[in-house]
């Protein structure tokens, strides 16, 4: 390499120890890559990072960088100490949407790596916390070139700023026996319906979709998304009694009682004298614990669908919020079902776009206006599955009690007739 390498005594300490070192990786780009541009960028980056370690401060600032036609998907970074670390003075990240489920062939990874090497720093992460491939570090000019190249072979930018963000879905039906929904299809149906809202930020704040195939919620969707779609079932769970007895035989009754029976949150399980299992399915809440312990014997039922929760988010600004159940159960069997899901998402985003304050997440709006107003806004009826308990305060006007009670009975009668 042409220039002298920055001295990095603090970062060098991160090359010690058994876990793979990102510093060693950046140094390889500095010392061994055949492209001077990449050598220089890596050297500058290491220099600036060492400066951060020494002074305990960050030195990147944001700005406005975009590709032609979009307003989102790039995280612009300009160095505040560019005079000392010139070759990484522009160090933008491109957020690129991964294939749903994060699958790649090694061929595709190589192709992405080759494109990135041509235009970027050679540093990449699979994936960032929002679910994007993070191509870390390129100049303003090369941002467009890199995007043009990967866009030609099927990759598109993700969201950044006040827009619909890149979605996430678990491995699900592709490799997991607990999957209760076609996670990839939900993910792609929703995200690709809102492509315009991903690329052109025009919402009050960010809006995230996440899809988990069961209540284990491996995508952390209840807390980390505005619109969580989680697979579940409403008929009886399946018990392979022979496999269960075999498990009890192998592990013992005390183990079975301590780790399965008494861990059921609704006391819905009972170990019979012959080591078979009784399940009170009416009171099973599909928590997944017993299925996790004995996947060979216990499985989800056949009448599968999804539960939808809305309004999860982290601290800023009013404190952490979990999502709230808005749709206790919804079938996703045919195209009409998927259309209904998309329409619901459109309804929610439209209502929030119109009623949310600037920088207010959907969940914060629900907190501000109350769940009932939100439900009326999106055209969903109240349901006791939406609450943990009924109100404890009597400070409320109930003039229309009789009308509301009648609605409930009418709805019940309708449901009875339909079934």
């Amino acid at each position, binding site marked *: 390499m042409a220039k002298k390498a920055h001295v990095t005594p603090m970062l060098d300490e991160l090359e010690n120890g058994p*876990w793979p070192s990102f510093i060693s990786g950046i140094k390889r780009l500095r010392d061994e890559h055949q492209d001077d541009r990449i050598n220089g960028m890596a050297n500058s980056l290491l220099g600036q990072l060492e400066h951060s370690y020494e002074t305990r401060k960050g030195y990147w600032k944001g700005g406005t960088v975009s590709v032609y036609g979009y307003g989102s998907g790039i995280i612009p970074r300009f160095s505040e100490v560019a005079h000392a670390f010139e070759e990484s003075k522009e160090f933008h990240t491109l957020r690129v949407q991964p294939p749903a489920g994060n699958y790649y062939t090694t061929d595709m990874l190589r192709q992405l790596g080759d494109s990135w090497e041509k235009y970027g720093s050679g540093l990449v992460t699979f994936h960032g916390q929002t679910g994007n491939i993070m191509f870390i570090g390129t100049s303003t000019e090369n941002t467009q070139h890199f995007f043009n190249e990967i866009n030609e072979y099927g990759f598109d*930018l993700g969201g950044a700023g006040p827009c619909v963000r890149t979605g996430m879905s678990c491995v699900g039906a592709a490799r997991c026996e607990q999957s209760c929904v076609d996670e990839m299809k939900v993910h792609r149906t929703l995200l690709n319906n809102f492509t315009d809202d991903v690329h052109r930020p025009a919402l009050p704040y960010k809006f995230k979709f996440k899809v988990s195939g069961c209540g284990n919620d491996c995508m952390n969707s209840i807390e980390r998304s505005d619109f969580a779609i989680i697979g579940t079932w409403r008929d009886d769970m399946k018990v392979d009694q022979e496999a269960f007895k075999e498990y009890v035989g192998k592990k013992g009754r005390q183990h079975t009682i301590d780790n399965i029976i008494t861990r059921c949150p609704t006391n819905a399980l009972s170990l019979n004298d012959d080591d078979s299992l009784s399940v009170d399915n009416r009171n099973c809440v599909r928590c997944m614990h017993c299925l996790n312990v004995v996947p060979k014997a216990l499985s989800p039922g056949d009448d599968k669908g999804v539960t939808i929760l809305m309004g999860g988010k982290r601290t800023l600004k009013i404190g952490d919020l979990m999502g709230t159940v808005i749709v206790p159960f919804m079938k996703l069997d045919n195209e009409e079902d998927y259309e209904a899901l998309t329409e619901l998402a459109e309804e929610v985003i439209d209502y929030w776009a119109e009623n949310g304050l600037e920088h207010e997440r959907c969940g914060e709006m629900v907190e501000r206006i109350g769940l009932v107003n939100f439900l009326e806004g999106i055209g969903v009826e109240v349901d006791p599955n939406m609450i943990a308990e009924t109100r404890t305060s009597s400070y409320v006007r109930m003039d229309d009690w009789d009308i509301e009670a009648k609605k409930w009975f009418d709805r019940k009668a309708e449901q009875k007739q339909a079934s």
Partner: protein
Amino acid sequence: MMQGQRTPIESGCPDGFQYMHPTMRKNYGNWAYHEDPRPGVLKHTAHGGEAIYTVRAGTQRILDVFTLRKLCDIGDEFAEGYVRFTIRSNIEYMVADGSKVEPLIAALEKEGFVVGGTKNSVAMISHTQGWLHCDIPGTDASGVVKSMMDELIDEFKGWNMPNRVHITTSCCQINCGGQGDIAINIQHTKPPKINHDLVANICERPSVVARCPVAAIRPALVNGKPSLEVDEKKCICCGACYPPCTPMQINDPEHTKLAIWVGGNHSNARGKPTFQKLVAAGIPNNAPRWPEATAIVKKILQTYKENARDWERLSDWIERIGWPQFFELTELPFTKFHVDNWRGARNSLNASTHIRF
């Protein structure tokens, strides 16, 4: 349209099927059960009897193209050319041929990658951007994760914990790292230092005022220039004003500290999902190895490992033994700062005679 500009193809999220292992494609939605042959390896069996083996490995996450190609080479030589990445950025290789598992593990370990992270292990620490790329970080992310994983590597490779442990880090109080069984997050302890010369040029003042969760910021004229002032008695030092207005410098080499939170859990298994709760603070932001934070994390892990029952997540364990015993066992101080005073805080107080003696 400008001359020479290319119109983007708005293809959105690509179809995963085209990159999926053929055995997974074939058995999509038709898996019967899974087994755990050894740490870092999963075996899934479909209803028809076909099986797929997964080998999971931890990496440095910030991958240089050389490392990326090395991972691909291993995939071509020892696996079947199909990979995926987990939510915690581990790489997974899928093979239909079980005899490929051991050579694949050997190849990964030879190149320094770490096979593990399944079942009741300490999973890969979830990771934010930090000083490497964020515009508002109070600390680094990759360095903290590297330092801690060096110390926790045996827990990643083994099945020694009562249940899985998810550790997260966040470089500011926005907490991109999310909820974790153990979370190591920035906690600022002093109000922002304002560069009044820059506020008027850089900041949209009303939106900065609106951003403050405790209404401690108001417009002011300072040295004849429009700027902002902070009521320092009201200020909770959260740093929310800093992203929209960088002259409100919140990061401080001395007073930006780390705090540790426990019991965050996203799963619905057994109990409902839970938020993480504060257990330790005032921890120095001590680059490059953050030994003080790591020591507390290890102490909590050790205590959990020795005391929790099988399948108890950290939150389940604390719920069973109670907070007084948690502080006793971990030897961490309990202070007035552990008592919540944010909205709805009284719900977090003990309104019963349920006390353990």
